[in-house]
């Protein structure tokens, strides 16, 4: 009897089984027919499991959903209106940003340094690009949970030296890295950034070599500066892309959300303030900083690089694994005793917190304490009880 029960619950965890119950196709039907032929004594179990699966599904059907659905659709139709003026209704939480419906200009054929959706990332990358566009256009602040691609380890080469942290993308795909304030940067292959590991000064500064997309966490007290060889990009909280032409070194800055100011390092007098979809071009040969034609939203999305997200949600994960994930994401070495924490398991869902907030949460969960010194983060505590 007990075995029977267990078989049922095993089936419920089988993806193949779920497919057959929920949305059977030729393949799954054939598979289970074959299975039933092979295990005739388990057929009853199979159908019992199916019944439970259906019951579980049935219970999720919401009350009054049809009514709600119809009401929603009426609202949607009402706002689908005209194409030319894409203003979001005042009810929206994201308020301020008005889409540049009035901006004209042809799609600029920029030298797109970004790595377009690599098909090796299944369709996940494609969906991410779509989401990123929606997210970046309609929301001012940095995005939260990203769907994570199920891909193997990323290698972030990072060095914690006296000048701070240097992080280089040595892989062939884009890489997502985080700063301790919560800012997120997508580094393209071969590009690197250099910054003080803990961004302690009254300003946040990052030196960039190559191409990267920045999503800067809002911190009004500490403006964010990105330096390339010759340029200074200053932001408060926004998202923008910086691209360096490999051949002539020209740098293009394209703003997705918010506002940035771009100026030459040598002379702060000439300062360009850019708004969404606007871009600046710095020509190395002539040392000219000009505002080039704005990009149409369509063109803009092509320039924003997509990277596999770092999953910050953990369900009963060994805390050592969480430390490793943090180390990879932030580039800051974590020092802890493997053995001490080997039995510690944590369930937590981290998102927009700063690095230190994440540390606090995790340490609280395992009853440990952290301290930061010039070697990185040191975690100390007692072993967890099983």
């Amino acid at each position, binding site marked *: *009897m007990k075995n029977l029960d267990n078989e049922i619950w095993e089936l419920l965890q089988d*993806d193949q089984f779920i497919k057959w119950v929920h949305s059977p196709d030729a393949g799954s039907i054939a598979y289970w027919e074959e299975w039933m032929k092979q295990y005739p004594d388990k057929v009853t179990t199979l159908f019992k499991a199916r019944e*439970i699966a259906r019951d579980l599904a049935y219970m999720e059907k919401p*009350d009054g959903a049809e009514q709600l*659905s119809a009401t*929603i659709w009426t609202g949607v139709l009402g706002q689908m209106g005209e194409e030319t003026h894409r203003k979001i209704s005042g009810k929206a939480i994201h308020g301020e940003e008005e889409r540049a419906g009035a901006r004209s200009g042809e799609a600029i054929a920029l030298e797109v340094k970004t790595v377009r959706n690599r098909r090796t990332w299944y369709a996940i990358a494609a969906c991410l690009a*779509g*989401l990123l566009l929606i*997210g970046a256009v309609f929301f001012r602040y940095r995005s939260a949970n990203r769907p994570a691609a*199920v891909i193997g380890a990323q290698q972030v080469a990072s060095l914690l030296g006296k000048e701070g942290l240097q992080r280089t993308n040595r892989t062939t795909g884009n890489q997502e890295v985080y700063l301790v304030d919560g800012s997120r940067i997508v580094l393209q292959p071969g590009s690197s950034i250099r910054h003080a590991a803990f961004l302690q000064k009254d300003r946040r500064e990052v030196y960039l070599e190559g191409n990267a997309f920045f999503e800067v966490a809002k911190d009004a007290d500490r403006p964010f500066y990105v330096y390339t060889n010759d340029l200074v990009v200053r932001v408060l909280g926004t998202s923008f892309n910086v691209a360096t032409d490999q051949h002539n070194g020209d740098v293009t800055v394209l703003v997705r959300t918010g506002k940035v100011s771009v100026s030459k390092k040598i002379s702060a007098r000439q300062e360009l303030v850019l708004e969404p979809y606007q871009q600046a071009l710095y020509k190395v040969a002539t040392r000219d900083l000009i505002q080039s034609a704005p990009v149409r939203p369509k063109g803009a999305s092509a320039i924003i690089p997509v990277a596999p997200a770092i999953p910050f949600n953990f369900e009963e994960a060994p805390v050592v694994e969480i430390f490793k994930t943090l180390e990879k994401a932030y580039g800051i070495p974590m020092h802890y005793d493997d053995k001490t924490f080997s039995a510690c398991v944590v369930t937590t869902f981290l998102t927009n917190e700063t690095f230190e907030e994440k540390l606090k949460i995790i340490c609280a969960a395992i009853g440990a304490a952290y301290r930061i010194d010039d070697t990185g983060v040191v975690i100390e505590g007692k072993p967890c009880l099983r």
Partner: protein
Amino acid sequence: MPQSSDEEALLWLQFKNGDREAFAAIYQKHSISLIAYGMKLCPDPDLLKDQIQELFVELWHSRENLSPTDSVKFYLLKALRYKLIRQEKNNAARIGMHRWSVTLTGIHREEPVETSLIEKEIHESQMALLRKAIKELSLRQQEIIQLRFYQGLSNEQIAELMNMNYQSVSNLLYRALCRLKDLTRMPAFKTLLHFFLFA
């Protein structure tokens, strides 16, 4: 019941090209799923209504820039989740998943295939037990049960949607099912089950 992924992909492309009917068809197909899932993440029906409405308006207005997809439902679930979580953050509320009591309606019920009165009774008592048991699960466990059984997602898709790694999802599902198994285990029920299976 579901369309093939080719048809889905085509419908999506038509929508991207500005075909209002295709857009309406997409909405028709997926609105209930979205409402069901949305309720798990957003307890306030008025707020949920606004969010879903906004989502579709946004989709319509940015349709040219959306990537092609052959799994529209998954795309929409992700978009909605993303949106609802952002909404929570912007309201400076912590992401607490709130309880939403799911009640049964008599409409659209798939009639269970039962041949005898006893079977019917057994099934109904089982359903009642399950219904009660689900409410005892944590909200994340409830979410995964819905995603898996109602929305029909695979573990991999759930991992992507909830931004967890695959192993965490398996663990979560396993614990949710274990909990349900324990909660639905009653001597009387077992006897009936025994009877049902071996009669």
